[in-house]
């Protein structure tokens, strides 16, 4: 048969159709590969890339003199990759020897059929390097940063510690997380569909950025010494705990904050009570939370007689009392239907206001409190900043527990005037007294001073703490300085006296609730030099056994600390102490 013209035409039509369709498909290809390319490329890359974090070194925390209080240590994790191990027996032997592990334990890990098995974490770098040098096939040593606190227990509740992801959990580590944490880097590796990294393709690396250095106002030497003192007195008095706080009353910088017993920051999940008593997780967590609490900030207490500084300041400021006003203490005062006793059973007899403060005489303060009245008393309470938080740069500051204004009757007013029936935090007491004796301006207690670059050491940010509004007149302040100096030189605070220094202060002994338990909190608050306070210290002893008077047990602790710290801070003796 002939291949006729119409046959050819028809084949031509088929061919034309094919050309049209193929050209159409090329068009489709152009669309996909030019206009949609970016979209699919991104999707494909996201599919191929595996991201691995490179941990950023966390910023250091240094004390005011640059001493490193919190840093990082390189630790290693030793793992085995089952499929790559060639000589299992050799690996087991060498690993158990080097890591100091039971051969049985190592064997279990080596022989386990898994993609990767951790043998030991937190191996120090030296050991890690040694294992790496052995070049055992299938053994992997990964380096990692671990937070490290060189002084272990020092200021544990202030500094705080970090968790598994290197994030702050308590203390300054939480508060300054944003400055300290730095930015993790990334390794972007391309993998095949099974997730195996392709060795031929260069990995993208985004370098980690180390966290910044935080410089805090704490002084290592003062903190260390105060901690030793706290430990000593706690052991001597078999107390539950001891808090010692030192700060600069002029600007609110905290020099030391001890909450004894402290705990080891490198092992924050081990109880500091020692022994491994079996307990369930919930109970243990509760005890850990207790252990981590910063009593100076997180817990409130009845301040007792130290609070008389505030009552006195308010009364003097309001003019309801003069320093030489005469009072008479029969050993008690009847308020409504109650007979509220003075701590001195026979009474102090006739005394001036100043002597009343020196004697820490309760009836004098009840009288003064009555003159002030509950309304004005509460006004001053607020004016002095006692109702607000201090704003200290630590998490979890507790607020003041106070009567409602309208609920304050004569009895409440009387007890409040000598520091009972309400609760404040130790930091609040220290901050408020600081503000009353520093010239009369409210300060913000704090640790954070500045943030420095870890690489260049240059200051990136200084934390501003504005000295807030005046809360008391300079005149009242000066009067208070003198009265409180006399408390130490002549009155109940004489155990805080140091020859040659002008030291102001006030003692306190308060019974904790419930009163029937006969537990006491003894405290002393002192500052020096009295006429130009540069340092203010507070020592609180919780539940001491035996003698529990603040003037007897807490004041000597502060004296010893001042004895060392005042010369250390360059505060010179002026010679005219005791009158």
């Amino acid at each position, binding site marked *: 048969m002939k291949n006729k013209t119409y046959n050819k035409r*028809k*084949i031509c039509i088929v061919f034309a159709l094919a050309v049209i369709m193929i050209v159409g*498909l090329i068009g489709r290809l152009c669309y*996909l*590969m030019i206009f949609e*390319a970016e979209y699919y490329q991104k999707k494909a890359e996201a599919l191929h890339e595996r991201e691995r974090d490179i941990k950023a070194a966390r910023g250091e925390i240094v004390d005011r003199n640059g001493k490193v209080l919190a840093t990082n240590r390189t630790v290693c994790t030793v793992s085995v990759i089952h499929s790559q191990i060639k000589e299992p027996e050799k690996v087991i032997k060498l690993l158990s020897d080097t890591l100091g592990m039971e051969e049985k334990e190592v064997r279990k890990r080596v022989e386990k059929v898994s993609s990767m098995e951790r043998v030991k974490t937190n191996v120090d770098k030296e050991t890690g390097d040694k294992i790496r040098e052995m070049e055992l096939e299938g053994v992997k040593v990964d380096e990692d940063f671990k937070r490290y606190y060189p002084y272990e227990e020092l200021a544990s509740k202030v500094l705080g510690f970090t968790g598994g992801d290197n994030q702050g959990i308590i203390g300054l580590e939480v508060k300054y997380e944003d400055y300290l944490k730095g930015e993790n880097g990334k390794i972007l590796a391309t993998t095949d*569909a099974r997730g195996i990294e392709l060795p031929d393709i260069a990995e993208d690396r985004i370098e980690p950025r180390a966290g910044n250095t935080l410089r805090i106002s704490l002084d290592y030497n003062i903190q260390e010494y105060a901690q030793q003192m706290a430990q000593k007195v706690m052991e001597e008095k078999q107390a539950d705990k001891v808090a010692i706080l030192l700060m600069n009353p002029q600007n609110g910088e905290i020099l030391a904050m001890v909450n004894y017993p402290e705990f080891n920051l490198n092992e924050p999940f081990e109880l500091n009570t020692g022994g491994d008593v079996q307990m369930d997780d919930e109970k243990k967590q509760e005890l850990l939370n207790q252990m981590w609490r910063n009593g100076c900030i997180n817990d409130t207490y009845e301040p007792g007689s130290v609070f008389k500084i505030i009552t006195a300041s308010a009364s003097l400021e309001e003019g309801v009392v003069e320093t030489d006003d005469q009072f008479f203490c029969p050993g008690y005062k009847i308020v409504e239907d109650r007979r509220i006793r003075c701590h001195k059973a026979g009474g102090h007899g006739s005394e001036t206001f100043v002597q009343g403060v020196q004697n820490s005489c309760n009836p004098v303060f009840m009288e003064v409190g009555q003159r002030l009245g509950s309304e004005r008393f509460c006004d001053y309470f607020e004016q002095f900043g006692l109702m607000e938080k201090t704003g200290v740069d630590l998490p979890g500051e507790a607020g003041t527990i106070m009567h409602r204004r309208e609920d304050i009757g004569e009895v409440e007013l009387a007890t409040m005037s000598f520091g009972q029936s309400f609760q404040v935090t130790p930091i609040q007491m220290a901050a408020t007294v600081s503000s009353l004796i520093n010239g009369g301006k409210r300060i913000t207690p704090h640790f954070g001073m500045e943030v420095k670059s870890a690489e260049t050491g240059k200051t990136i940010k200084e934390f501003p703490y504005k000295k807030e509004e005046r809360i008391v007149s300079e005149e009242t302040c000066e009067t208070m300085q003198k009265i409180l100096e006399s408390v130490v030189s002549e009155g109940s605070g004489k155990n805080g006296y140091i020859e040659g220094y002008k030291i102001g202060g006030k003692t306190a002994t308060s019974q904790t609730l419930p009163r029937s338990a006969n537990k006491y909190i003894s405290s002393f608050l002192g500052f020096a030099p009295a006429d130009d306070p540069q340092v203010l210290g507070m020592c609180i002893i919780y539940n001491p056994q035996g003698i529990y008077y603040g003037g007897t047990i807490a004041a000597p602790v502060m004296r010893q600390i001042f004895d060392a710290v005042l010369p250390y801070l360059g505060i010179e003796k002026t010679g005219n102490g005791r009158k």
Partner: protein
Amino acid sequence: MEQEERRSQGKTDKVLLVIVFLLVITGLVILYSTSAYNGKTKFGDSFYYLKKQLFATSLGLAGMYAVAKTDYHMWEKLAVPAYIGAVLLCVAVMLVGDEYNGSKRWLSLGPFSFQPSEYAKIALIIFLSWIVTKNVKKIGKLGTLLKIMLWVLPVVGLVGASNLSTAVIILGIAVILIFAASPKYAQFVWMAVLGCGFMGIFLALESYRLERIAIWQNPEKYEKGYQTLQGLYAIGSGGLFGKGLGSSIQKLGFVPEAQNDMIFSIICEELGLVGASFIVILFLLLIWRFFVISTHAKDLFGALIAAGAMAHMMIQVILNIAVVTNTIPNTGITLPFISYGGTSVVFLLVEMGLVFSVASW
């Protein structure tokens, strides 16, 4: 003069020869690039697929040479036995075939396995060319049309039982051959309308077929759209000039069995729009050559053989690229000369031999 020319062997079509060799060599290079990873991970030998394909290719080249040197008129006599052979092989594969990936498509002959549907395509081209030529005078009549289709349907049915895509290709070749032989147009329009109707019913019959359409429209929303999507990722990743030969990442297990149906997406990724277009144009040239040979063939039988090969090539290339670019719903069709498949390459080359023979006798 004319008589003499018809009886004696003329010159080999050099253009076709160059195109075929270009395709075969490019195909092997791309196949190696694409299959090396899968061969390494599955068989521990990155040359695994290439070796098998090389063996099939040399077998095919030998076949092509032999067929090209043979006067194609010999196949007139062998058309019926070839047809019967195709039917028998298709029956055999249904009874004793090997399953792979859930489809019974292979017959084992000792160490070799053989896919009868690939053979069926070429057998059908010869058989149809013969039967259409024989009935060419009555080809315009509906009765003749139906009679010819009646011959085709058993093979379509048998192949379609396990390999729907190949059945569609065979049906397509048949329709194009009859269309080429017939002087009429109208009935083919009706045929197209009818075909579309049947297609609709066929799709609606099984819900999984409709699902394929849904996947086609929105491959990112369906788990089964994975393969399509991975193909698109590969195509999109290529850009204008591609990542370079051997540098595809999608072939590393992301596109499943990258050396099979989806190989074109890897071409796009490695060689870019430029390289992919080059391959497509190579196919277009091949089809153009078939068209030239078909229109220059001395008789209808030869013209139909070349037209059949053209139909085969264009349907497979167009459908494959359309599937890979997600222009149509997914269906398993390989890319001639490039996708991995021994039987396919052997019979493709033999088919090329047939066209060479048509061109030179």
